[in-house]
């Protein structure tokens, strides 16, 4: 992530490779994607993704707490959701480890739908299949991680 507005209504995420997008008669290249916070119109598409993410966070917190107990460390400072998903890549890793394969497919499809529905923009153009299909897997995972950290967990 390279830029964050104070109100976090949108963030700009750096991509590892350039992608092309067609806008106003021109073929443009960009290595940034803007992620917009979900609004009420995205509620139904967001709820499945959020439910799976929050379940995974809960599992991760429970596992971290159990690990601390085994290590006989102070239980007073129990791990929070912030500690579990403080970083975008860590959030995706947490999701891969704690969500089922079916849930991961639901999350990926749900995230794509959110992007198509106005939550993902490149050069001000809402992304389409054509744009998304140019992304590397690591970029999609990073975008998902940023979305979880900035918009799904805090909301």
């Amino acid at each position, binding site marked *: 992530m390279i830029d964050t507005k104070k109100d976090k209504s949108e963030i700009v995420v750096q991509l590892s490779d350039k992608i092309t*997008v*067609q806008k106003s008669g021109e073929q443009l290249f960009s290595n940034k994607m803007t992620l917009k916070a979900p609004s009420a119109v995205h509620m139904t598409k967001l709820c499945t993704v959020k439910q799976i993410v929050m379940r995974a966070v809960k599992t991760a917190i429970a596992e971290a707490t159990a690990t601390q107990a085994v290590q006989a460390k102070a239980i007073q400072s129990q791990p929070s959701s912030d500690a579990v998903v403080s970083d975008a890549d860590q959030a995706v890793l947490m999701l891969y480890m704690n969500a089922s394969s079916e849930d991961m497919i639901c999350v990926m499809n749900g995230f794509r739908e959110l992007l198509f529905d106005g939550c993902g923009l490149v050069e001000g153009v809402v992304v389409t299949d*054509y744009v998304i299909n140019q992304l590397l897997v690591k970029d999609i995972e990073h975008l998902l991680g940023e979305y979880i950290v900035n918009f799904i967990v805090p909301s």
Partner: protein
Amino acid sequence: MTQVAVVNPQIVINNIAVGYVPNSLDVDFGLGEQSVKALAGGGGTVSTAYFNNIESNIGIVKFDLYSLNTTAILIQDWKALGNLNVIQVQGEGDTIFSFQFMALTNRVDFMIGNEKQTSFEFQGNPAITFA
């Protein structure tokens, strides 16, 4: 580079892949028409002059779509954009041609009926190649 016949390229117009009627795609890269004329030099000598008619440097993309409900919407969107359409033709072997500032120039005759097709002709800037 492996030589592959271009038989099924993908067309992307304004970030949306368009499914067209097979074998209906016709592309003019906008390289124009050139000519050579002989010049009489006298004394048995002849030389030539090269002419590049830039009037014909126009990129053209033609194709047919089946007359679907989605086609009717696309016609209105493409016409409304004037010459701000972008067309990318991606052929086999990852050869990509991009046509910028394209306008849907033909009078679109939306044929209604079973398996009816509608023809489209876009004109604009000469092609840019991304290989």
